[in-house]
């Protein structure tokens, strides 16, 4: 057993940390306050030549081949500074790129994954619809066969990068009878395809700098060669992608948690009340202890699971556990962090306030906590024991 990062992983972490400190942290408040997607796009331009946008993908597709471990390290570090940037990159790598890696054939990987890995193109993943969130199998967007093409009609909702992406993996219904059991098909759709339009949704509690959009498909003609994997394989690809992506979302929670802990420790040592730093009070110390204990647990399960994934193991249960535990732990942690900061933590000028708002969605998107519990329970009940 070796719990150390390899030399390359350590160098990656140090490099990303430096990049984040210099290029992202100084902009994070502004990105949030101004809902400034443009600043994030500027960051992506700088991240691309460093190879950061293709970390987990094989070298032959323009990636760095640093696996899920490398990807988790990247997302953790990004999330120390800016959840909006982290989720933008997460949707690009962990959802769009990963879907193509899992489901795509050689030609598709060459044509679509490679430009994503090098950062030449930006990706998005479109599953959620107005009537299908947790109940993902209930999507309605239809794909009808027409000669060499399929014609897509319908709407996708709350799609990260939806209106700034070049390449969108769209999940659609090809057989309404079969639905999840062979009736859902994934397509790679180029954003400039006629009939496709995207509309930014601005009013959000958090992640205000990320581009969240409603996607409308009106007779969008997609060639059959853009069917990801095979017709009817869509639901499997969507779920396997989510296994991996949930893990990185959990890694994001670690980064945010570590950052707010550091801010809380710093603040509690400096803030004087009743003639002493508030860090001297047990009430504060207990909160800091609980935050620290939870971070240790988060870190332990996420990097263990990332290692498992890199060993080629499937991680439906473990990915769900990581996502469930880390998102809920982060909410407890940011809540304590705001409490320690008192009035300062409530004010929009302080990053703590942003971290508090940004944290909440982690219990909702990519499968709510309730869905994660269902996934875990189903897996345990099926296998009969731990």
């Amino acid at each position, binding site marked *: 057993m070796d719990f150390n990062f390899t030399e390359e992983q350590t160098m990656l972490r140090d490099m990303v940390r430096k990049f984040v400190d210099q290029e992202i942290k*100084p902009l994070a408040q502004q990105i949030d306050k101004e809902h400034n997607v443009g600043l994030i796009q500027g960051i992506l331009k700088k991240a691309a030549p460093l190879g950061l946008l293709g970390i987990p993908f094989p070298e032959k597709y323009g990636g760095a081949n640093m696996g899920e471990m490398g990807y988790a390290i990247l997302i953790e570090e990004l999330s120390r500074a800016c959840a909006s940037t982290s989720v933008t990159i997460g949707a690009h790598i962990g959802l769009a790129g990963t879907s193509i890696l899992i489901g795509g054939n050689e030609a598709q990987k060459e044509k679509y994954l490679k430009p994503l890995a090098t950062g030449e193109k930006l990706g998005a993943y479109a599953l959620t619809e107005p009537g299908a969130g947790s109940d993902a199998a209930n999507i309605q967007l239809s794909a009808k066969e027409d000669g060499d093409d399929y014609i897509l009609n319908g709407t996708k909702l709350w799609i990260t990068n939806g209106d700034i992406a070049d390449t969108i993996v769209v999940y659609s219904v090809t057989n309404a009878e079969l639905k999840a059991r062979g009736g859902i098909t994934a397509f790679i759709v180029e954003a400039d395809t006629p009939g496709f339009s995207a509309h930014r949704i601005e009013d959000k509690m958090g992640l205000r700098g990320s581009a969240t959009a409603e996607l409308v498909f009106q007779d969008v003609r997609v060639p059959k060669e853009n069917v990801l994997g095979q017709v009817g394989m869509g639901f499997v690809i969507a779920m396997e992608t989510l296994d991996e992506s949930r893990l990185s979302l959990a890694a994001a929670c670690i980064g945010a948690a570590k950052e707010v802990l550091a801010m809380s420790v710093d603040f509690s040592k*400096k803030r004087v009340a009743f003639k002493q730093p508030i860090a001297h009070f047990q009430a504060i110390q207990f909160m800091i202890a609980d935050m620290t204990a939870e971070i240790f647990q988060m870190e332990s399960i996420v990097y263990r699971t990332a290692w498992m994934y890199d060993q080629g193991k499937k991680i439906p249960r473990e990915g769900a556990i990581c996502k469930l535990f880390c998102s809920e732990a982060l909410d407890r942690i940011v809540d304590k962090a705001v409490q320690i900061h008192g009035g*300062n933590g409530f004010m929009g000028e302080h990053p703590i306030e942003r971290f508090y708002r940004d944290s909440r969605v982690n219990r909702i998107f990519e499968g709510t906590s309730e869905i994660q519990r269902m996934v875990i329970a189903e897996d345990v009940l099926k296998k009969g024991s731990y």
Partner: protein
Amino acid sequence: MGHILVFAEQRDGKLKRVALEALGAARQLAADAQVLAILIGEHTAALTQTLTARGADKVYLIDDAGFSHYSSEGYGRAVADIAKKEEATLILMGATALGKDLGPKVAAKLGGPFAGDCIALETDSEGKITATRPMYGGKIISTVKCRTATYQVATLRPNVFPVNDPDDTKESLVENIAPLPDLSSVKAVIKEVLASANTKVELTEADIIVSGGRGLKAPENFSIIEALADALGAAVGASRAAVDAGWKPHSYQVGLTGKTVSPSLYIACGVSGAIQHQAGMSSSKYIVAINKDPNAPIFKIANYGIVGDLFEIVPLLTEAVKKIKNE
């Protein structure tokens, strides 16, 4: 204690104040020993009297067109030669841009110990120096001990050591250095010196500094800082945040990756006072903080703090200062 040699830096025919501070430090350490000064440049002869009055027992002089510009090799050889001739125990100079180059050069030529940017010097009975100097960007104060009493080289932080009261009755003893050090082997030659736009008062030498940070919100708002600085005859500084935002060039930056200053008065306006900033200014004698955030770390080190809007307070202060100056 043997002889102490002070390199008396001048620029454009004016002695640097830190040169006089070095004479002051030398005089205190010298006891009965001689304090020698070395003055190099062109049109420098007129400055020798000041050096005598401020504590030099003898002045070695180069007044020559060939030495009008600094060169590490030329100046270094001149100083090292005199140090050897006089068997100097200690060689002092200011920790200026020039001194930071010349000090190590002289130490390299003489093989003696070097202590840079000193804020205190002591000597033991054998003449060995213990120097106090900041390290880690001012986060640590160290004492370093020389183990030999010959050719010890130290550069002194400006504005720290006291200047001797002038003694104008003292007879000036000047020796022109001859022959002059051979400059034919100098391979790094100053071709030109460009004056910077910020010509008013140099930060590291300023007695009063007014600095601005992120709280100024926009580059054009530096004008209110400049107005106060003009009224005070002060230099203008900036925090790293303001420099990184492109509001002022790096030459204005006070702090860890910028300049270290020790003025009598440092007025920080809209500067939060991050540890990196404090590293560059916490040795100021008096610190005034003006900031709207009562929790800004700058208040922890300020002698006088005003929690409030700098856009209201700084102009009021400027007016008050003008009124005093007109009295």
